[in-house]
Every structure is written in structure tokens, then in C-alpha cells.
């Protein structure tokens, strides 16, 4: 046994300790963003519960806006389903992308409904509806804030699996890049294209 061998043995020990530590670190980062998703989940569910209430209470006034109401309900149901899938494995790109899609459709149809509500003075004066819209807006804000928190956590996880030596461990232990939760604002999407010239 020479010095070289003992050096190798120590190196092997240290190497294994580094692997174990890096692995644990990645698990921690992953748990952190999954946990952040559960915060969004709570707020989204709260919002999904509020929407039928709002539709119920505006129904009586909005007989000839049936289509808008139906759109809201349909897009809400789609979003609920998409959220359920996403919540099972937060960050998984396909289900996250379908949630993002469903959410922006919902946001679009909701803002349409809000615009309608604004245009009916009777509706605006109704206390229950005012409460509901207020609650909806504040939930919206909370969703935005917890989404930001989730995105921060995902970013630090994604950076975590890219840097050396974590990247090697990430490859061999199935740590995949997680998907950010970014929603385009409907009003931004609907900006009409103006052709010059």
C-alpha cells in the first residue's frame, strides 16, 4: 500500500460524501418549490370555489349574456382539471403547461365577465356581487404573489441542477428541470396588431 492508494481512498470517501450531500441539497430544493406550488394551489382552489358563486348570483341579471357565463364555467372546469393534474406532480412541464394554458383562458373569460358586470348598474350595486368581485380580485393578487414565490423557488432549483457537481447527480438521479408558472395577461395578448405601411 503506497501513499497513492491511501490518497485514492480518502478521495473516494470525500467523493461519496459530496455525492450524498449534493443529492440531499437537490431534494431540499425540489421540496421547496413543490411546497411553493401548494401555496398557489390553495389560492387557485379558493378562486375556483368563488367563480360558481359569482356566476350563480349574476345569472338572474344576465339572461342575454348566457354565453359569457357558460364560457366562464367551462374554462373554470378545465382549469380545475388541469390544476388537479399539475398538483400531482408540480413542475412537470406538460401538466404545468396545460395548467398555464387553462389559466390564461380562464383569466380571459373572467375579465370579459367583469367587463359585463361593470356595465350593469344593478349588478354593481348588488352587495353580494360586490363582495364576490372584491374577494376574487384579492384572491387574484394572492395567486400572483404566490406564483412569483413559486417561480423564484423553481429558478433556484433549476440553477441548482445545472451547476457542477450537482449537474452530474441530477442526471443520474432523475432530477429534471421544472416548469415556471408564468401567465400572459389577457389584455396584453389582446393588443391588436397594427400594420404600418
Amino acid at each position, binding site marked *: *500500500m*503506497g*501513499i497513492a*492508494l*491511501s490518497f485514492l*481512498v*480518502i478521495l473516494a*470517501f*470525500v467523493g*461519496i*460524501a459530496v455525492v*450524498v*450531500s449534493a443529492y*440531499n*441539497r437537490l*431534494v*431540499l430544493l425540489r*421540496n*421547496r418549490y413543490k*411546497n*411553493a406550488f*401548494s*401555496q398557489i394551489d*390553495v389560492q387557485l382552489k*379558493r378562486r375556483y*370555489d368563488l367563480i360558481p*358563486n359569482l356566476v350563480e*348570483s349574476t345569472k338572474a341579471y344576465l339572461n342575454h349574456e348566457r354565453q359569457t357565463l357558460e364560457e366562464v364555467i367551462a374554462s373554470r372546469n378545465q382549469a380545475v382539471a388541469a390544476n388537479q393534474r399539475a398538483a400531482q406532480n408540480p413542475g412537470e412541464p406538460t401538466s404545468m403547461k396545460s395548467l398555464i394554458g387553462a389559466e390564461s383562458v380562464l383569466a380571459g373569460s373572467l375579465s370579459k365577465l367583469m367587463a359585463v358586470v361593470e356595465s350593469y348598474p344593478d349588478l354593481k350595486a348588488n352587495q*353580494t356581487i360586490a*363582495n*364576490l368581485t372584491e*374577494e376574487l380580485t*384579492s384572491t387574484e*393578487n*394572492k395567486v400572483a*404573489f*404566490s406564483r*412569483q*414565490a*413559486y*417561480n*423564484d*423557488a423553481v429558478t*433556484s432549483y433549476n440553477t441548482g441542477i445545472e451547476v457542477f457537481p450537482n449537474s452530474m447527480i441530477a442526471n443520474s438521479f432523475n432530477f429534471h428541470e421544472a416548469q415556471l408558472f408564468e401567465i400572459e395577461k389577457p389584455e396584453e395578448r389582446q393588443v391588436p396588431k397594427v400594420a404600418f405601411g
Partner: protein
Amino acid sequence: MNFFEQQDRARSKTHLLVFLFFFSILSILFLANATAFLIIKHLYHEFIWTDHLNVFLTVSGGILGLIVIGTAYKLYSLSDGGISVALMLGARSVDPSSHEPDERKLLDIVEEIALASGVPVPEVFVLDHEHAINAFAAGFTSHDAVIVVTQGAMNLLGRDELQGVIAHEFSHIFNGDMRLNMYLLGWIYGLVLLSSVGRMMLVNLNGSNSSIRSPRQTGIPQIMVVGLLLTIIGSIGVFFGRLIQAAVSREREMLADASAVQYTRNPGGIENALKKIGGTIDGSRVDDPFADQVSHFFFCEASGYNFLKNWMSTHPPINERIKAIDPHFDGKYIPVIIPPKELLLTDYDKKMLEKKKFMALAGGNVIAGSGFSPPPTSFSTPTSSNSPVKAPPSTPIVSNPSPISATTDAFSSLKLQARDLVGVQALVFGLILDRDEQIAKDQIEKLRSKVNSTLFDKTISTQKILLQETPLQYFSLLQLSLQTLRKFSDPQFVSFLAIVKELIQADHRITIFTYSLYKMIKNLRGTFHLKVQFLALNPVIPDCAIVFSALVYAGHGVTDEALRAFELSSQHLGLPFHTPLSPKECGLAKVDQALTRLGSTVPLLKQKILDAAVHCVATEGQKISLQGVELLRAVAATLDCPIIALGLRNFVIDESENSQSKKLSVS
């Protein structure tokens, strides 16, 4: 025995821990080297020290290095505090504004106890797939503490029982057990790492060997022998690790049980919880693979070891624990079958559930779980800081909840606001804004330039409601806010803290309240570790003088009364001072430094200092103004002491006094 004495005992336990730790390292080294010696002898049939010295050095160096790396890594990864332990076990953080009845019950219980004892409300986690009944608290100080319960505990225990369990965990937070447990976790990780590495070598090589095995290679690969040896030698580490866990944890569990009875004044609660655990097979077993590492944190035995039961148990047997609470215990446990969820709810919960349904139908705000009495009442109760653990004080610090109706009064709406991610920001800004309109003007201008209009409007409306509240409620609202602020991501937290800082500085005067608000918020991000540095009073005498002077000015203004109060507290502690420092000499920067130093005194000394500090804000006839109590709470919180630890029993809280905001001016 009070908190300080218990903290002191936890500290001396640490010395035992260090001793055992080094002893186990020595035994591992001895065993490893002895093995190496035998192998060499077997291979070479003769043994010359100088030829093989490097072998022994390698073995010892490698093992030591591994233990050191393991421990250092683990302690580093725990530097975020309790939350890292919770996340390691894959726990889910419960949203403070949750409306789910079981979660609400749990959150309310935690809030009640935290508010009554004056510590920040800890973040609450649930282990979703654990159906047994168990719970633990983790963290270094009450600022980074988390409470984790299993789903079983949340669902199967009634409100009183769960309250008993949570109170037990809180006593671990106050008694300094939790901190000790955190270090223990790091050290044991190092000890156990050796056998983990060994097992990894065995398993991995087994796997890869089967695929590339060539016919020539029939002998056992050398590396497998190394793996096997490491596993065997490492098991010494595992053995000692578990032994240390058990030795440190066991007796302190009994103390925590007794404290839980003392806090809740309800022996039935924790007793029935224990009976329910005893009534089920594996009633407290936690299956998560990481659970072994933290078995010493739990409320009840978490691992299913049968081998060497008495030595390795981290907790005393259930029946002994029940007997300690109720000497007439007849050995009858409460069998628990997992019943349909509705049956688990107590009457209180059912009412809340109905109310929730009703409110949802009505479409209004859901106000759930206001079942706690506001802290001022629980605060004015005499506390027994010097009585033995089992002698009950006349009133509980945690009052039992009365199912009060969903009130819409200002305080409950603020409480609700404290639980949501956006509302909490407005609330904290509102708490900082000065009660004096003129002074608040600058701050409001500052705020307008820093935040968006929604948040700004919300802050202004919040401040209007806040003006109706007393300073004591300010403190409770701050405590509640902290649990929500923990949910912020790092960038969110940093930018929030920056605005808080600018707002505080905008009025050019800082009150002790805003100071401690800033401190407590800042401490949320895990850099807060009070290290014990001072064993005697002498080195911190100047610091006491600074803090006391600041306190008397804040409590009485620059008056003769302030001089008398200073002399009184100075005498109380035996300080060589008769007159307070001039207001210039106790500016905020100085107070901050002084409090940091006082925070690193030994627990028993801390108690004396805090006792004397009480005299700073008391007026003659032993009355304390609400303002004074607020200051004390702030100081106690900064020093990481629960307010119930303060010796306020001889004082009457004067609630009649118009609590005018007296300022500690800082230029």
C-alpha cells in the same frame, strides 16, 4: 423549574453530548484501525509499524474526514432553521388562511399558544401520508421554529388533545431542547454517514457487477470487502448515534409533558392524546425514511425498533408518561380506528364547518376560527416563573376556546388580513406608520413611491382600523404576520424588508416597537443564532445600563419618574449606577448592540436581567402601563424569551392609562 432553569439544563446536556460524540468517534477509529491491523497481519504474516503507518493514517484520516464533512454539511444545510427539517421529511406547509376544518383547528391552536406566550407564530407543516399520531418542533430559536404534525394527529385528535400535543412541542421550543436537537441531528448525521457510505458501496457494486461480471472474475471484489467493513464499523456510529439521541431526549419528554399540562391547565388533553397513541398498534410510527434521523424530535416514539428497546427508545414508555400525568391511570387506552371524517370533529369544529358552509352560500367573507381570546386577558394572568413545574398557576396561559360567533370587529378582520400574502404587507406597513398624523405624513409619502396603488390603498385603510387598537394588539398582529411572511420567496422577502426599513427610517425617529418589528422580521431568515458568550454579569453591565436607560425613557419620558425607575431596576440587579445615561448615550444603534450582547448571556442571567427590566417600565405601586408591557414584549422577543417567562406576577397592568405613544427619539 422555569424556562431559564430548563434552558440551563439543556445547555449542560450539550456537554454530555459532546463527550459521547467524541467517545464514539474514538471507538470507531479504534475499531477501524484494529481491523486494518488484523488484515495486514493476515496478508503479510509479520508486522512492522513503520511500513504500514500510512495505512493507519489513511484509515483514521478518511473516517475522521467523513464524519467532519458529514456533520459540517448537515449543520450547514440546517442553517435555514426548522424549515429545512420539515422539508427534508417532505412536509407540506399549511396555508395560514386555510379554511379546511382540521387545518383551521391546528392553526388556531398554534396561534393561541404563540400569541399567549409572546413568540412569533411558527410555521405549521403537515406530514400528509403519515396516519399515525405524532408531531415535532424544529428550529434553533423561536424565530425560525416550525411545528410539524402528522396527518393522523391532525385528523384523529380532538381539539383538546391536539392542544396538549402542541403545548408539549412549544415547551420544547422554550426549554432549549429544540436547539439541542438540531445540533444533535447534525452530529449524528456525521456518525451515521460512515455506514451509509458502506451500504452504498455494497448496493451499487452489487448492481453494476451483475451486468458486467466476467467468467474469470469469481472472487469477491476488494471494494465490496471495504463496503462490508465500513458498514460494520459504521454500525458502531449508528449504535452510538441512536444511544445519544435516546439519552438526551428521554427524560426531557416527561418535563415537556408536565409543561404542556401547565400551559393548557388541562391534563385530560395530553393524557387522552397519549391514550389514543397507546390504543393503536404503531400508534406513533412515522414511515418516512428520513424519520430515523429526527426520531429525537418527535412527540412520541417514531421508529419501530424492538431491539434493545429500553436503551434505544427516544421516549419513555407511554404508560409511564400517562401515569406521570394521572397517577390513577388504569391501563385502559383509547382504541382508535380511522373513522369517517365527520365523526372526528368536535362540536366546535362542526359549528365552524356549518358556519363556513353558510358563509360560502351567503357569498361573504369566510371568517373561520376566531376561537381564541385576545392576548391581553391571558397576559394579565399571574405567571409562576419560580414555582415547580407541576404546581399549577391559577389560570392557564392558553384559555380554552369558546365557540364565539364569527365577529366582524376590527381585530378579527386584521387577523384575517395577517394570514394572507398580500394583506400582510399592508398590515405590516400599517403597523409601522406612526399613530401621529403629522409624523406619519413623511412615511406615507415614502410608501406611495415604493409600492403599487392597490397595496398603498390597502395600507391606508388598514392604518385607519389599526388606530382603534391598543399597542398590545399591535404586537399580537405582528406575531401573526410573521407566520405569513415566512412564505415569501427570498427575492420577495428581500424587497419587502427593504421597504420596511425605509419606512421605519422615514420619520427620523424609531420606537422600540418598530425596532423590534424590524428585528423580528429580519430574523425570519435564519441568520439568527444566539450563542452563549457571557456567563457572568460583569462584562454586560454597560449593556444593561444602555437598555435600562432606553426603557425608562420610553416608559416614562425624560422625567423624575424615569430616574426613580432606573434606580429601582439598577438596585434590583445590583448595578453600580444610580442615574440613567443621557438619551444621547442610548440611541438605537447602541441599544441594538447591547441587546445582541444581552442575548448571548446564559439563560439564568437573562432571567435576572429581564426581571430587573420589568422595574424599568413599572410605575410606583407596581403598575405597568400597556405601553410598558409592549416594550417588555419587544425586548423579550428580541432576546428570544417567551413573555410568560417574565416575572410579572406581582404587577398590575394598568389598562386605564391613555396609552400615548412615547417615543425613544433617535437622531
